[in-house]
């Protein structure tokens, strides 16, 4: 009948676009093990199949994401960088327009800025001691204090409950109500801080060239290194592998992990001093700016330079957004560039002039907003297309309730990663440890204190009734030594014969394949 003969016009499962599948792809299929390991082969096959299925499912789920990213497109003959913030604020809806605002705080010096991980809360720290934390979307002031000391840097800790302030002498931790919780005297002269959220580590760089790590969940200093490179005031973290990047006045950028006393990598980036460093969220690209007025883009996985741009005024602050927009600030001008690493960039995407000289830049996560701390206070500017439109509710949820925040905090503390696991390749735990035999032997010797494989010297048994004269003992020793020598020779000869046989076989196979006849064939054995 008609119904039975109808066939599916689109047979099989729906196709998934290639880029989406690529986005969710993890590493390639593992090598098949050798012949005899049936169970292992079966297990690997099943795990590969399950992994592929889950990657495809995740790629399919991408279709259901609710939000789209922002954009800004001008006319054909028009530069988007000439569009002013006021125009954008008028053109968009009221809520988005309210995200462009200025805080005039000219009394307390240039401001450092930090947004919390969810993007909801903003922390301002003025040079002359003014510290304030605000829920910037509802403009609700959470706390405002003056610490009566100069403030070098401010940083949110894992949630909006606590923040760290690097003051003139020591490191202080405050509650979101402004109550001083801790004064950590071990961390002195801190200039810059970075918080590693999944490790609960606060990394601090000091004026005395010390890089220190503080575990904020336990309250212990995990590691302290004397970098011996001078004043450390350029610092950033690689969100992909939790490595700290430090920039130095001799133009080098060094990479640090809490497990090694020396820098993991030292890269010479600029001819002058390095002014600012930033790394994107996938851990692929590093953007640095230096005193030589250059802006350089590096592939940090392969440590190769990709692009180099000349900025007429240089860039004192850099920040990368979640979607790859780069903001560079010099003096009182903030410029935003798009696609710095894929296509050659000739002009900025957006530009804005603020009232004072820029001291801190930070993109707000999950919002199209860039926070600029400057000498005259704080400006929040609109940058369409900067924020990630779809957040994950279980990771950083700007709309979480108090209960959800508590549950998230407990789970995050339970899966806190130990600092020993920080390395250049974050997936190192997933690889089979193929330590060579020599390496393993060396480890065993070190662990045991002696070499278990070393042959003990042969000590002949002392025989009574005069059978242990010097000559007899020597004879016995010689006999054992000769036997050992014979064993060795036999072994080497066997190995040699085997190898020769293999070479011959290979040559024969080759000859058989190539089938070339030569006049000398009849002399071959």
């Amino acid at each position, binding site marked *: 009948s008609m119904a039975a003969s109808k066939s599916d016009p689109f047979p099989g499962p729906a196709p998934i676009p290639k880029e989406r599948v690529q986005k969710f792809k993890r590493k390639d299929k593992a090598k098949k093990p050798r012949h005899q390991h049936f169970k292992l082969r079966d297990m690997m096959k099943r795990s590969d199949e399950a992994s592929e299925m889950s990657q495809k499912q995740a790629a399919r789920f991408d279709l259901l994401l609710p939000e789209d990213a922002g954009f800004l497109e*001008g006319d054909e003959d028009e530069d988007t960088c000439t569009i002013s913030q006021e125009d954008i604020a008028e053109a968009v809806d009221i809520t*988005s327009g309210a995200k462009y605002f200025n805080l005039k705080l000219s009394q307390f010096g240039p401001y450092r800025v930090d947004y919390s991980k969810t993007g909801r809360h903003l922390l301002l720290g003025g040079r002359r001691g003014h510290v304030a934390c605000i829920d910037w979307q509802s403009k609700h002031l959470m706390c405002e204090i003056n610490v009566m000391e100069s403030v070098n840097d401010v940083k949110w800790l894992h949630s909006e409950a606590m923040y760290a302030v690097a003051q003139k002498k020591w490191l202080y931790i405050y509650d979101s109500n402004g109550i001083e919780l801790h004064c950590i005297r071990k961390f002195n002269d801190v200039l810059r801080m970075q918080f590693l959220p999944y490790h609960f580590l606060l990394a601090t760089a000091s004026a005395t060239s010390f890089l220190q790590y503080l575990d904020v969940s336990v309250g212990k200093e995990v590691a302290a290194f004397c970098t011996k490179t001078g004043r450390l005031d350029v610092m950033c973290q690689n969100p992909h592998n939790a490595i700290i990047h430090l920039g130095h006045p001799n133009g080098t950028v060094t990479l640090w992990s809490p497990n090694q006393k020396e820098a993991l990598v030292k890269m010479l980036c600029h001819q002058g001093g390095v002014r600012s460093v930033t790394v994107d969220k996938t851990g692929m690209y590093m953007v640095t700016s230096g005193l030589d007025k250059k802006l350089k883009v590096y592939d940090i996985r392969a440590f190769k330079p990709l692009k180099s741009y000349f900025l007429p005024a240089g860039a004192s602050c850099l920040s990368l957004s979640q979607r790859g927009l780069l903001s560079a600030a010099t003096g009182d001008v903030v410029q935003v560039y798009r696609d710095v690493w894929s296509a050659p960039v000739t002009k900025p995407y957006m530009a804005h002039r603020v009232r004072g000289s820029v001291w801190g830049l930070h993109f707000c996560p999950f919002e199209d907003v860039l926070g600029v701390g400057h000498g005259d206070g704080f400006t929040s500017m609109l940058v369409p297309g900067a*924020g990630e439109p779809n957040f*994950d509710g279980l990771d950083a949820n700007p709309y979480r309730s108090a209960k959800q925040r508590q549950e998230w905090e407990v789970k995050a503390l339970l899966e806190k*990663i130990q600092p020993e696991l920080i390395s250049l390749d*974050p997936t190192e735990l997933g690889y089979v440890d193929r330590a060579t035999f020599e390496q393993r032997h060396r480890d065993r010797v070190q662990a045991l204190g002696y070499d278990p494989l070393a042959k003990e010297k042969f000590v002949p048994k002392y025989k009574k009734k005069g059978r242990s004269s010097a000559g007899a003992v020597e004879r016995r020793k010689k006999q054992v030594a000769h036997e050992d020598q014979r064993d060795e020779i036999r072994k080497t000869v066997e190995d040699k014969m085997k190898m020769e046989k293999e070479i011959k076989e290979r040559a024969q196979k080759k000859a058989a394949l190539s089938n070339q006849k030569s006049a000398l064939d009849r002399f071959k054995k």
Partner: protein
Amino acid sequence: MTSIHRHYNVSSANALHVYAFSVHFQMKVKVLSRNPDDYVRETKLDIQRVPRNYDPSLHPFEVSREYTRALNATKLERVFAKPFLASLDGHRDGVNCMAKHTKSLSTLLSGSCDGEVKMWNLTKHDCVRTLQAHEGFVRGIVVRYCGTSFFTVGDDKTIKQWKMEAPGYGEAEEPLNTILGKTVFTGLDHHQKEAVFATCGQQVDIWDEQRSSPIRSFTWGVDSFSSVRFNPVETELLASCASDRSIVLYDMRESAPLKKVIMTMRSNTLCWNPMEAYHFTCANEDYNLYTYDMRNLDRPFMVHMDHVSAVLDVDYSPTGKEFVSASFDKTIRIFQKDGGHSREVYHTKRMQHVICVKWSADNKYILSGSDEMNIRLWKANAAEKLGVLAPREKQAINYNQKLKEKFQHHPQIRRITHHRHLPKNIYHQTKELRIMKEARKRKERNVRKHSRPGTVPVVSEKEKHVVTVVK
């Protein structure tokens, strides 16, 4: 003046187009603006909304976080591993044999060394019925497949069939049927579907329930058999353990035994795998258990080594994936069907030599009957939470299980998973046995090294224990 279109932000389905006259240009702009109504729950009684995005760049450190979760799951499993549930007290002599009720999960029958048979209610942990079945040991007890009656055999050469219901008020316990035999019976098993049962003693007899003499007797030159078992899947097949260190296979329909395999030491009991018709596991005196494929008896399919004394009883889980073994060293061990070493060991100071063990039919509990007159109820999965689980709990348990499986080879996790506390004598005995085994291996290696190549062949561990197969 050029007309200007200003497009408002289109995050919702309805787009507002407002035309206004203003200054220069024409631009298209959209700024991310989320409607909180889409992300926050409407009332306190709803569940919270959790939008998901599986983009890997939003979830860095996948491997390390999963590893930490797996480590926590492993440690918590050890924290919650409390397998002992209850001890059933009441027998006045050692418990010799047990039988599972075929229709009721909460009933257990046990026979002791003074001829008493007790019926237990496992949910209330108390004895429901007691009857004096035999004078002397109760050697075997089995419940009929329909669940209405059960059979016992004892040292007084009788086979008795009893009703499952307790007798009424004032009535005495009387067996439904008594069969007198000529020799002592040492084991008993009932057919899965027909009214036929088998006993073993001096020979293996197949009995019909209506007759008082066996319908068939199998002998093969041996004078005593220790246990007989029907295959639960291929219901016409039987296997028995004989005192000449052999295991004999029979087909009920034939007149002679099929074949037998002679091993280096005697097997005490055997159990068929309820899911795989051709596998059976025998509990041997040389501290090991051997799983054989009945089609190929010349080498066991697997050798299970971990006990430090003779293994007395073995029973399979109803899933067929694992089995439990009871040993003369006062422990019971749970093995996987293809695992050479045990995954779990249960012991208590009060439990002495474990004579019989059963795995309950709902795969959750293990019952062990021991020398000191107690039957103990254990959890098959030591860290399992019993009772009704919420769906989220089940999901969390499944996730933790999968994580532990994924990272089982990492050294720290493997160390924690494999760690078990053992009583001091068993711990020392295990070490001693290992030293002995290594010494033997070393000697064999040296002998092989110093003799002509080929004169001392390499015999695999599996082949070592089988002497011969006789058809």
